[in-house]
């Protein structure tokens, strides 16, 4: 055997940055022929994701937080010693000694000892119930103590302190206080105005904020009972987390005689060498460029610099951007570049919306050309874009306030076009230091065209995840540039987009799934293309969706014309146009609900939902409802749901038009028409907008002169306001524009795309949509109106057809060989005076 000439590298500290160093080293080819790697860690666990530590409280396990499984180290030939801190470095003999007495000699040492919580010397800090927030162990202690505590506080209103305070609330404490010494929150990242906005947002979450408070004493017996402040005031608390800053773990380096800074930190040069060139220090223990970088991204960059150095490459650690986006649940906060820039060379633009809890500030050069930095509170959606603009010194638009206010005309969506104009070396993923060029290269040359593939090949999006939207845009942008029009094909069975397939089906007059699949598809279909084709067939012909071969291609809910629920029962939602209902009809609903033992609830859509119906009972229930004059409400379909109304001029003292009548008319007109996704509408009788029309796919608001028509609004998880399509129009015009708008949407949207998303993706946005729908630039308006009229003429209540057709009705059984028997697996639990579905496991 050859003599072992490998250089021995000892890594002290198995935290985030120490781990990253190992990962980057072993990624080099032949590393094992050149180095032996030994890692000492003080904590009992392998390195884990400290950045997402708080997720431990929401159920993430230590294993899930681990950056690599414990077997990873051995598999790669890394010797790992956990629960065994290094206690001594002998630089003469080039050896380290661990707490358990292990002695290992080294050629290089990498200090990655991180930092610990800085605990100020307040009398009483040693009491029970006082914690720090740094390791999984800390969180375990906090969790078990919190179970018997009611009131908690956090000392420190910085990034970590706020996160810890939110965690206290999530742990079920009744009160969570944040005590900050400075006059504002997050003093290092945001200004006073931003702090004010943030404070009110946090208070809305349930936190109590105390500023200008200097904690003087922690009071209580063995355990904490309260805090006393310098201004004489006091606060009763049962537990306290100290988050007053970090203190670099430089004690080992100091004992070894390495240079450290009086205020903490191991001093390193651009190559991250300490005063002993064979000893490197990286991460939160290192003081580079006169500062401690308390974030993970610079630490990762440091790891990359040392690995390069060990392989004899020239790479320096440059001053690192400290822009941050807080991952505080519920409130967006971001700061980038120089958030506080001021003075004659700088212009500051701020935007504040107190009602919405939004504060934005950008600092630009006096000549208006460059973005210096800024602050975003309450809405940080523009963070990525602004950060890129700032870092790359992109020339600003003529009206820089557009940067934070958005393009108010909604003329264009910034998205993919914006990102392609960034320079190649723009950092897209700052956690892993991945540039635009690197990602583009993976997309172009290695065919990685999904986020998952890119995660595997570049590690982008695997850190904080903040860059995921940018990476998505990049994929789209690159593919488009290559002339590879990103084809939105349905699935492996159809090589067409929904729009293409719709046209083919229409031209060929196909009315069955089998026909469509035989002519335009391959294989046997699946749960993606079946409902998509079902929707196309329904949108084109509006025939009963359960006839011919269409029943078995319907999605779960459509298949049985009802929403399937937990436990396998269904819900029944009769149509109540405009929310208007007679007492007699209300009585029938009550009677039916009682007879079939259904849970009843008023929905968010101004109608009534009856839950918990057995499959076998559905036709009987509907038979009774239909007898009383009800029709299907299509709550199960990608179709018109409700047209919400406000009472309007018939009763309301402000109403200027009869909104209820119009809502009823609109709902009756478009009921039962199937579309790529569900459609909701609202009609308000005046500008006070009680029907929330602007949050609907199409909304109508009365004016003195007529009606304003809004389109493409959305509630749901990503709310978006509808945009104005036409002003002061009469009813007839409104209906005509709606016919065109809806049909245009039905014919061109991707499957399961709401109108808002459809518009967001549309080139030219609302301007284009207006041109097509109002000005008819494509010359298709008459055709769209005709097609809509055909759908309307073909409408029939599908439940009525099922009730009257024995063949269709027969399908509504659970056991085909025991049609009367209900599913014995269905179980309910009592709930107040009604019942609910039994919780599943």
């Amino acid at each position: 055997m050859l003599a072992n000439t490998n250089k021995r590298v000892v890594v002290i500290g198995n935290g985030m940055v120490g781990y990253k160093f190992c990962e980057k080293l072993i990624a080099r080819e032949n590393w094992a022929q050149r180095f032996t790697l030994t890692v000492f860690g003080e904590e009992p666990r392998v390195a884990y994701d400290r950045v997402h530590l708080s997720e431990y409280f929401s159920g993430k396990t230590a294993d899930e937080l681990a950056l690599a499984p414990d077997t990873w180290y051995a598999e790669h030939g890394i010797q790992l010693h956990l629960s065994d801190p290094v206690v001594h470095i002998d630089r003469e003999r080039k050896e380290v000694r661990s707490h358990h007495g292990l002695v290992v000699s080294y050629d290089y040492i990498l200090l990655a000892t991180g930092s610990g919580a800085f605990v100020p010397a307040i009398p009483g800090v040693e009491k029970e119930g006082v914690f720090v927030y740094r390791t999984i162990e800390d969180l375990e202690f906090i969790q078990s103590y919190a179970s018997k505590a009611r009131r908690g506080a956090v000392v420190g209103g910085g990034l970590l302190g706020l996160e810890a305070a939110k965690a206290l609330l999530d742990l079920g404490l009744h009160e969570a206080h944040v005590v900050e010494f400075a006059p504002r929150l997050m003093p290092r990242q945001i200004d006073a105005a931003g702090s004010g906005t943030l404070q009110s947002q946090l208070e809305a979450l349930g936190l109590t904020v105390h500023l200008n408070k200097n904690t003087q004493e922690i009071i209580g017996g063995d355990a904490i009972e309260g805090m006393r402040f310098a201004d004489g005031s006091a606060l009763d608390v049962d537990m306290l987390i100290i988050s007053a800053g970090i203190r670099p773990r430089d004690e080992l380096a100091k004992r070894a005689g390495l240079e450290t800074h009086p205020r903490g930190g191991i001093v390193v040069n651009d190559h991250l060498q300490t005063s002993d060139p064979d000893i490197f220090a990286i991460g939160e223990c290192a003081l580079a460029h006169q500062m401690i970088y308390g974030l993970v991204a610079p630490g990762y960059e440091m790891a990359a610099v040392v690995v390069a150095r060990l392989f004899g490459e020239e790479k320096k650690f440059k001053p690192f951007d400290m822009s941050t986006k807080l991952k505080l649940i519920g409130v967006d906060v971001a700061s980038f570049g120089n958030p506080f820039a001021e003075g004659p060379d700088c212009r500051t633009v701020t935007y504040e919306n107190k009602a919405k809890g939004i504060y934005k500030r950008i600092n630009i050069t006096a000549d208006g050309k460059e973005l210096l930095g800024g602050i975003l509170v309450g809405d940080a959606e523009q963070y990525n874009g602004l950060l890129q603009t700032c870092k790359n010194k992109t020339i600003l638009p003529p009206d820089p306030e557009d940067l934070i206010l958005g393009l108010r005309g909604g003329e264009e969506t910034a998205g993919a076009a914006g990102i392609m104009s960034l320079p190649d070396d723009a950092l897209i993923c700052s956690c892993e230091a991945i540039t635009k060029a690197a990602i583009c290269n993976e997309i172009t040359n290695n065919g990685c065209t999904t986020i998952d593939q890119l995660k595997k090949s570049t590690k982008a999006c695997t850190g904080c995840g903040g860059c995921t939207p940018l990476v998505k845009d990049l994929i789209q942008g690159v593919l488009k540039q290559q002339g590879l029009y990103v084809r939105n094909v349905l699935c492996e069975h159809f090589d067409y987009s929904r729009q293409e397939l719709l046209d083919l089906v229409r031209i060929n007059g196909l009315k069955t799934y089998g026909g469509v699949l035989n002519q335009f598809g391959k294989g046997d279909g699946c749960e993606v293309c079946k409902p998509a084709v079902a929707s196309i067939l329904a949108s084109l012909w509006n025939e009963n969706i359960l006839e011919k071969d269409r029943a078995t291609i319907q999605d779960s809910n459509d298949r049985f014309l009802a929403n399937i629920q937990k436990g396998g029962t269904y819900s029944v939602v009769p149509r109540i146009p405009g929310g208007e209902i007679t007492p007699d009809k209300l009585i029938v609903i009550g009677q039916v609900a009682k007879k079939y033992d259904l849970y009843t609830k008023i929905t968010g859509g101004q109608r009534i939902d009856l839950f918990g119906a057995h499959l076998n009972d559905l036709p009987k229930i509907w038979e009774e409802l239909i007898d009383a004059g009800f029709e299907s409400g299509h709550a199960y379909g990608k179709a018109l749901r409700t047209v919400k109304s406000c009472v309007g001029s018939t009763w309301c003292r402000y109403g200027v038009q009869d909104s209820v009548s119009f809502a009823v008319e609109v709902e009756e007109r478009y009921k039962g028409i199937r579309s790529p996704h569900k459609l909701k509408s609202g009609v308000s009788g005046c500008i006070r907008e009680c029907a929330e029309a602007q949050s609907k796919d199409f909304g109508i608001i009365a004016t003195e002169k007529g009606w304003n028509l809004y389109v493409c609004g959305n509630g749901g998880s990503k709310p978006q306001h509808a945009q104005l399509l036409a002003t002061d129009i009469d009813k007839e015009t409104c209906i005509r524009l709606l016919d065109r708008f809806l049909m245009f949407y039905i014919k061109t949207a991707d499957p399961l795309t709401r109108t808002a998303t459809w518009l967001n993706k549309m080139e030219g946005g609302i301007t284009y949509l207006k041109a097509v729908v109002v000005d008819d630039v494509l010359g298709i308006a008459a055709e769209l109106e005709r097609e809509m009229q055909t759908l309307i003429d073909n409408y029939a209540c599908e439940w009525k057809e099922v009730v009257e057709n024995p063949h269709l009705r027969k399908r509504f059984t659970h056991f085909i060989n025991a049609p009367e028997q209900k599913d014995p697996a269905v179980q309910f639990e009592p709930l107040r005076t009604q019942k609910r579905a039994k919780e599943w496991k």
Partner: protein
Amino acid sequence: MESIVIEREEITWHLACHVADVPADGGACVLIEDRQIAIFNYARRGEWYATDNECPHRQQTALARGMIGSQGDEPKVACPFHKKTFSLKTGQCLTDAEYRIRTYPIRVEAGLVYIGL
């Protein structure tokens, strides 16, 4: 000479339903010896399959109401609840290695469907 050992089948065949009871390219559920069994009439290929009706994901008894189809060549069914898909041949879940359903022998004779238990 080699001897061939034939394992003794211990299957009892139960009459389940008529062919016409199960929609083409869809499923229906039968109750046999207190067991809920999903029967699929894969008309496109002229094949029949039988599996558990209960989905192992959240113990919901509705696989028979799921959409069938194919992934590559593998015939599959998608659970109506959260769209986990299962091979109709092996019962293996195709979207989550953790899950599997039981499959049963099935025979169609003279317009009648039989399940083997």
